[in-house]
């Protein structure tokens, strides 16, 4: 589904990603771990098409197509979804209207008619129940005054609504208490199928107890320096990142 070859990316001429190779197949869950500043969030933003980042080398292929020239919205239309580490507060736009606009613009891009209001409401009801979201919450302004947990739940709600092929969860566990973590992880697991894939970016192992990865990759200095199975996450939790850094620098 996603194939990243020798990806280099920089912001303001400062190189952040320095040769990433990663292949994600349908049905897989990949975890990307690593110390602060290793380039995890940059990788997520580059895949999602944030314009501040410049790809200087390498390719990102989605289902065989190079997506480098595509805008963020075109990537979304192709099925890429990024759950933000810090979801943006947008006063004046309600969650419901935001989702309605996003879904209908995506349908428009695919040459489809707007989703009938009845179907939209039904879908909103189902997906909000999945994430145990109070209906009142949906008429509030997007992320405005939401708690950390509400913001993250709202991100996964959006993911549920948009049904992406590839979801990238950027530090979705940060700011979550244990109950919220369980709800969010539960939501992600229910949305998981053999046709879609998830990349979980996290600093800590605890989310991975709930969303169990098939592969774990360790990012350091803009490169994947170690890959393994889910047991690698436990090892990192026990031993920290220093040994990885030493190994990488050796």
């Amino acid at each position, binding site marked *: 589904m996603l194939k990243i070859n020798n990806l280099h990316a920089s912001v303001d001429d400062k190189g952040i990603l320095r040769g990433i190779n990663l292949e994600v197949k349908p049905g897989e869950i990949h975890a990307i771990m690593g110390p602060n500043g290793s380039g995890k969030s940059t990788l997520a933003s580059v895949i*999602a*098409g*944030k*314009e*501040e980042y410049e790809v200087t080398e390498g390719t990102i292929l989605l289902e065989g197509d190079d997506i480098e020239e595509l*805008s*963020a*919205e075109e*990537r*979304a*239309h192709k099925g890429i*979804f*990024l759950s*933000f580490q810090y*979801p*943006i507060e*947008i*006063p*004046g*736009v*309600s969650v419901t*209207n*935001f989702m309605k*606009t*996003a*879904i*209908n*613009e*995506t349908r428009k*891009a695919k040459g489809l008619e707007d989703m009938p209001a009845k179907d939209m409401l039904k879908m909103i009801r189902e997906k909000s129940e999945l994430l145990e979201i109070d209906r009142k919450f949906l008429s509030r*302004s997007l992320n405005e005054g939401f708690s950390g947990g509400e913001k993250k739940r709202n991100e996964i709600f*959006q993911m549920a609504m*948009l049904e992406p092929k590839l979801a990238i969860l950027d530090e979705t566990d940060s700011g979550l208490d244990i109950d919220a973590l369980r709800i969010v992880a539960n939501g992600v697991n229910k949305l998981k199928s053999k046709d879609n894939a998830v990349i979980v970016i996290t600093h800590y192992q605890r989310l991975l107890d709930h969303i169990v990865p098939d592969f774990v990759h360790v990012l350091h200095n803009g490169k994947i320096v170690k890959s393994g199975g889910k047991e690698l996450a436990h090892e990192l939790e026990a031993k920290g990142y220093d040994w990885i850094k030493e190994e990488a620098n050796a």
Partner: protein
Amino acid sequence: MDLKEKLVSSFMAFEDTVDVHSPIHDIRTEAIKTFENEGFPSKREEDWKYTSLNSVLKHDYSVFPKHENALEFKDINKYFIHEIDAYKIIFIDGKYSSHLSQTTHDGLDVCLMSSALNKPKYRLIIENYFNKIAPKNGLSSLNTAFSAEGAYIHVPKNKLVEKPIQIIHFSTGNEAALMLQPRNLIVVDENSHVQIIERHQSLTDNPVLTNSVTEIFANKRAIVDYYKIQNDNENASLIDNTFVNQKQESHAKVHTFSFGGKLIRNNLNFYQNGERIDSTMKGITIIGNKQHVDHNTLVHHIEPNCESHQDYKGIFTDSSTGVFNGKVVVEKLAQKTNAFQSNNNILLSDKASINTKPQLEIFADDVKCSHGCTIGQLDDSALFYLRSRGIPEKEARALLMFAFSNNVLDSVRIPEIKNRITKIIANKLGVNIGFDL
């Protein structure tokens, strides 16, 4: 001959067309003298520092309408809020169109200034209210001197006027350049409620300059909601002078939506003559090209326990320019005043500009007064957030701009106006999305 000379020398001819025995003959004569002395305002005056009238005064305007022109309703239907049943006072090139209007004398007067000025039964109201609060400056005096036509609305006490009143001025372009000076008088008596929608629409690209004066009297516990839709074409300019005098416990709201026109200057003054008065003025301005919109507001807090609320949002692109000058005066007697003012702006291009100036003059010591102004750009991270969900850039920008300004619509009481404004905004921003937020 420049426009000022032309106007002054036309006055005699104008007086011949109206009744010199009219009770306002002396007022007009006085006013033309004031205009002759004051002339048009120039940038040397503090209140006009950022707005120059030169480019709109240069045309050779026909200064008072001679011809009767007709329009068919089907051609102009779209300028009405036609989804609602409303009284209509419609003018074509400054002349009243009975064909398009729907007036009434049944329980209230919704009719013409020309009849009010000439018929004895309105004499008392005219004597008590006409030209009582319009300041004696050049522009208002000019309007007073030529005041002959406009809307006259008198709502007697304890009357809830269910149908809104639409006042629309059309100009047909039959004159190469046309100057219009509508004069409106609105008197709302005790416990009454009225809603008014005003619009100026030019139907061709010929230059039009409108210098309008509206005097509004909200008597005890009256409620007045006034909506100004300024979406004219880009050769039409408007100087709107609106003055509101409020008595105790009255509520007056003026919403000004400015999207079209070449140059717009809104002079909006509120005078609070009583206790527990609420004055609200709100606006959304979204302009581009070389458009210019200037909001000049004044709230005069004279008595205790009153409130005023000002909330103006502006979005400026291309080489457009905006001005906000909001003055709040709190007299020594006006203790426990709550006065709030905010003016937020987004500049979308390097050539667009906004000059914003709050002016507070507070002589009382137990008051709450706040003001704030901001100037910023669209937030890139918010834009990326929306785009990452599949909303294209243009639509994402439009959504953010609408979200920035839409709280101004919260206080609009007529849903059809809200819908119309959101449609005009979507149109102005070039997108086809519903903002039913």
